[in-house]
C-alpha cells in the first residue's frame, strides 16, 4: 500500500499556504499531522493532485490561553495541547478528551485542528468543540471568517469549509466557575474509535446539586449530537437517580449499526455513558 504520486509543496508562511490552496482549487489536500490523511493516501482512497504540507508554517504552532478561551493553532500537536498546563486549568475537557484519542504515539503528530477539519463522526475533539460551543477560524485568499461548531460539522467527514479555506485555529471557551466536565467513551480496544462517546459539561450549585448541563455524543450520528440537559438534570443530585438523563440522551440519538456494534447497543451506551459522564463531571465541579 503505497501512496500514488502527487505534486508537493511545503510553504513556510500562512500567506504562502493560502495562496497555494487558492491556486490548486479542489484538487489539493492539506497535510498537517497526517495521521488520518497518510493512511488514506497509502490505501489510495485519496489521490489529490497537490499536497500542501503545512508542517513548516510555524506561526500556526501554538496553544494559547487567555482567561476564558483556549486558542489552538493548526499545527499544535494533540500531545502538546494534552500536556499544556494552562489549557488544563482553563478548559480541562480538552485533556480529558485528548487522553482518549488513539495512542500517545499518534498524538505526537496528530493535530487538534486537523482532527476537527477531518470531522470523523467518531472524533472526540468534535464533541468537545460542540459541547463547549467553540468555533474555528478559516482563512482563504478571499478573507477570513469564524464558524461556530454547530455550523462547522455538516456531515460525516464533511465540514462547511470550502476547498480553498484553511482551518487555522480552533477556540474552546474556558470553564466557568462551579462547572465540571467529563469525557466518557467505550471502544472495542484501547485507543480505537469509540463505539459511543460523550462529552459532558454540568453546572452545580453550592450544595453540589445539578443546575444545568449539556452533552455532545460521538459515533451515534453523522456529526456530534448535542443534547441540552438543563431540564432533565435541574435539581437532581449527581449521585442519585439520573434515569431521565439516560432516556433523554437515548431519545436524542439515531445511531447506525456497523460490524462492531448494533444501533440499539449504541443507543444503550449513549444513555449509560451520559449518566456516567454527568456523575463524573459533577464530581469535578464540586472539587
Amino acid at each position, binding site marked *: *500500500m*503505497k*501512496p*500514488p*504520486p502527487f505534486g508537493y509543496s511545503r510553504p513556510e508562511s500562512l500567506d504562502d499556504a493560502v495562496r497555494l490552496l487558492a491556486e490548486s482549487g479542489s484538487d489539493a489536500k492539506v497535510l498537517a499531522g497526517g495521521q488520518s490523511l497518510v493512511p488514506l493516501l497509502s*490505501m*489510495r482512497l485519496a489521490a489529490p493532485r497537490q499536497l500542501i504540507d503545512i508542517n513548516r508554517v510555524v506561526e500556526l504552532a501554538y496553544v494559547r490561553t487567555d482567561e476564558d478561551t483556549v486558542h489552538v493553532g493548526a499545527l499544535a500537536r494533540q500531545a502538546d495541547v494534552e500536556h499544556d498546563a494552562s489549557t488544563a486549568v482553563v478548559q480541562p475537557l480538552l485533556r480529558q478528551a485528548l487522553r482518549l484519542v488513539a495512542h500517545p504515539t499518534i498524538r505526537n503528530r496528530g493535530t487538534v485542528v486537523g482532527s476537527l477539519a477531518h470531522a470523523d463522526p467518531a472524533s472526540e475533539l468534535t464533541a468537545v468543540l460542540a459541547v463547549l460551543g467553540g468555533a474555528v477560524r478559516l482563512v482563504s485568499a478571499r478573507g477570513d471568517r469564524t464558524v461556530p461548531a454547530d455550523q462547522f460539522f455538516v456531515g460525516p467527514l464533511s465540514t462547511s469549509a470550502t476547498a480553498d479555506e484553511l482551518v487555522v485555529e480552533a477556540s474552546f471557551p474556558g470553564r466557568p466557575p462551579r462547572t465540571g466536565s467529563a469525557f466518557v467513551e*467505550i471502544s*472495542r*480496544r*484501547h*485507543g*480505537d*474509535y469509540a*463505539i459511543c462517546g460523550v462529552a459532558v459539561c454540568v453546572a452545580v450549585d453550592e450544595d453540589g446539586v445539578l443546575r444545568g448541563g449539556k452533552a455532545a455524543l460521538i459515533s451515534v450520528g453523522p456529526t456530534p449530537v448535542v443534547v441540552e440537559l438543563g431540564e432533565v438534570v435541574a435539581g437532581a443530585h449527581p449521585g442519585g437517580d439520573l434515569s431521565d438523563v439516560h432516556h433523554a440522551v437515548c431519545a436524542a440519538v439515531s445511531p447506525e449499526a456497523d*460490524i*462492531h*456494534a*448494533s444501533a*440499539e*447497543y449504541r443507543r*444503550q*451506551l449513549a444513555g*449509560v455513558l451520559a449518566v456516567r459522564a454527568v456523575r463524573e463531571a459533577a464530581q469535578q465541579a464540586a472539587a
Partner: protein
Amino acid sequence: MFGQPIVRREDPRLLVGEGAYLDDLGQDALAAAFVRSPYAHARITDIDVSAALEVDDLVAIYTYDDLAGPLADPLPLLIPHPTLTHGRTAHALARDEVNHVGEAIAMVIAHDRYLAEDAAERIVVSYEPLPAVVGVAAARDGSILVHNDVPGNLAARMVQENGDAAAAIAAAPHRLTLDLQVERSASTPLEPRGVLARWDTESRRLRIWSSTQTTTGLRAAIAAKLQLDLADVEVIAPDIGGGFGVKINHPWPEEVLVAFAARTLQRPVKFTEDRREHFIASAHERGQLHRVEVGYDDDGRMLGLSVRFWHDNGAYIPYGLIVPIVTSTQLLGPYRPESYRVEFDSLYTNTVMVTPYRGAGRPQGCFVMERTLDAIARERSLDRVEVRRRNFIQPEEMPYDQGLIFQDGRPLIYDSGNYPAAMDLLTKLVGWSDFDSYREQARAEGRQVGIGIACYVEGTGVGPYEGGHVQIETSGRVKVATGLTTQGQGHETVFAQIVADELGVPIDSVQIVTGDTRRMPYSVGTFASRAAVMSGSAIALAARAAREKIMRVAAEALEASPDDLDIDDGLVHVKGSPGAGIPLGTVAVLSNPLRYAFDEASKAATQFAVGDQEGPPVADDDEPGLEGRDFYSPTRATFACGMHAAIVETDPETAEIHILRYCVVHDCGVLINPRIVEGQIHGGVAQGVAGALYERMAYDDHGQLQNASFMDFLMPYATEVPSQIEIDHLETPSPLNPLGIKGAGEAGVIPSAAVFAAAIEDAEGFPISRMPISPSELFELRQQHRKVSR
C-alpha cells in the same frame, strides 16, 4: 542445558535491528505488485494493460496467457484424500474466473513497489459479476455454485465412526441436541508473506527466500512448476515475523510467479505482501457450523455422541481436509464417549481459502465437546467438573485407541496423559469449589461473574519425519541443521540446548540452522506443534550418532576404549581425568585423513595416529568427517493435553466482558526450555482471547471483506489480554520419542472459545452457542432472552 530456562541466543541480533526478514533482503531486486479481483465471483472478460505500459520504470506485466506448461495448470492439491472428490485449487493468475475478492489476476514488475502499484492501478480488467456464495448456509443451500462443476459446493463429505452412535443415542436415558457455530478468523502474523527469487545465470540455478513454514515443500512445488530439477532449486527461510499456520500453505501464486519472473527476466524479483493483501489473498480458518446429538446416562456419562458439521473451506482447497479432519478427531478430547460418529461437509464459498491456523480445527472441536458437556451438566444439575471427570479416559487405560484415523493417516491412539491429575491441578489453581459462593456474593453487590472450564487434547509431533545433521568442524564449532523452519519458537536456542547436552560442548560453540534446503534438504515443515518433537528428536539422534563417531576416533587417538571416554566442555577425555584429553576440533581433523595440514589444528593432529595403518585410510563402512545424520519418524503422534479456566465479569449496563482470572494447566511432557514454553502459552492464550472476544472476518453478503485492516480486525493490544496468566504444569513424558517431549506451540489457543463461552454463560444464565462474542452481541442476546422470559 536441557530443561534450563536459558535466555535465547537469537535475541541479540534481533534486538539491535539486525534481523533479516524477507523484505530486508534483496535491496537490488525488482518489485512485484498484483492486480486483484474486487469481486467475490466474476468472469473476466478482458484485461487491458495499455495504460499501465506508460508508467515510468515498468519492467513487465504478466497475465494467465503468459503462463505455459505446468505454470498454466492449477496450483497443486497438496493433501489429497479419498473423500475429497471435488478438490479445486486456483491458477497462479486467474484464467477466466475469479472466486474471491483478492484473487490475483495480473502481476506487475517494476523498479519499486510504488511504481509497481502505479502500473497495477492502470490495468483495466473487465468483469461480468456473478452471484457470490458467502457463509455456510448459502453454500449448503447449493442453489448458487462457486465452481460450476462442484454440485452443492461440496468438496468432500466424510464420516468416521466408532461404534453405533445413533443406536446408543436412541436408547440412552437422556438426549440433547445443540447447534453451535464458530466464526471465521485468521493467523495474522505481524509480518505478512514475502518471497524473493534469484536466478543464477551462470549455474542456471534458482535460489528462493520465502517467509514460509516449509522450505522443502516449496522447493518441490517450484521445481515442478518451473520444470527444474530439485538439485537446481534452493529455498531458504529467512527470519520470519510469525507464521501461526498461514505460512504452511505452498506454493502461493506469488511464490510461483516471482520465481518464474526472476528466471524469465534474469533479474532478482521480490514480492512483499502488504497488510490489506494479507487479509484478502492469504488464508483464513475457523468458520464451522455444528449440530450435536448426544445421549447420556443419569450420571452424565456419554453413551453416544453424533456430530454433524459444515466446514467453510473458502474458494479453494489446496491444503485438503486437514482442518475438518482435525476437528472430527480432536473433538473427542480427553473423553471416551462409548460411541461416536462424526460427519462433515467441506463446502466452497466465494471467500479467501481456508488452511490451518494455530489450533487447526482443534478449537472448533474443543468448543463442540466442551459446550456439550456443559449442557449435559446443566440438564442433569451436575457439577461441570464432575461430569468431565466421569467421562475422562483414565491414565491406566493408556495407550487409548479412539477407533478413528487421525490427520496423519494413522490410528488415533493416545500414548500418554493423566487427565484426572490435570483436573485436580486446575480446580485447585482456580479455586473451583469456592466459586459458587463468590458468584453469590458478587450478585449481591450487583455484579455478574462467571467461571468456565475447558479441556483439550492435542496430537503433536506428527510425521512423516524430520532430520538432523550435526557436523563438528576442525575449529571445534558444532554446526547443526534441521530442515523445518522457525517463526519465533526459539529453535536456535532449544535445539542448541539438546546438542550441548548430547555432545558435552559449551552451548556457545553450537550453531543451529533451520529452514535451508542447502543444509538439510529432507524435511516436512513447521506446523501442528511438531518442531520440538520431530526436529528435537532427530537432532538428538544425529548428535548421538556424531558422538558415537567422536568416541570411536578419540578412543583410537587416546588408546582407550570408547566406553572409558567422556566429553566435557568440548574436550574428549578418559573418565576421571577431565584435564587431559583432546579437543573436539582435533578429533574432527583426525576423522578426515588428508595429505594437507591447512592450519595449526590440522598440523597438531599429526601427533596422533588413527586408523589401521595396514588398511585403507577410510574404512569400508566409514566416511571421512565428524558428522552425524539421523531422522526421526514416529509411528504416530504423541498427545499433549491442557485444561484452562477463566473467570469473567460482564457489565450489566454495557455488556463489556472483563477477564478477572485466567488459569492454565498444561502437559507437554518434558520441557527443553521452560521459559520458551511459557512464552508459547502466553502467546497462545492471548491469541485465544483474541479469537473468543475480538477477532472475526466480517464478510458481507456480496463477499466483500469489511474489515480488511487492523483498524477493524481487532487484534488485541496489551490492554485487551489478561494481565496475568496462572500456569501449572504436569509432565507425562512421551514414550514415543527419545526425549520424552510433546508439542507446545498451539496449546494456549485451543480451548479459548469454549472456556469463554462457558464463563459468559455462567455469568449471564443463558446459553452461548456462537463464538466469538462482542459486547454488542452479548447485549443483543440479553435483549432476546429478556423478551422470551417476559
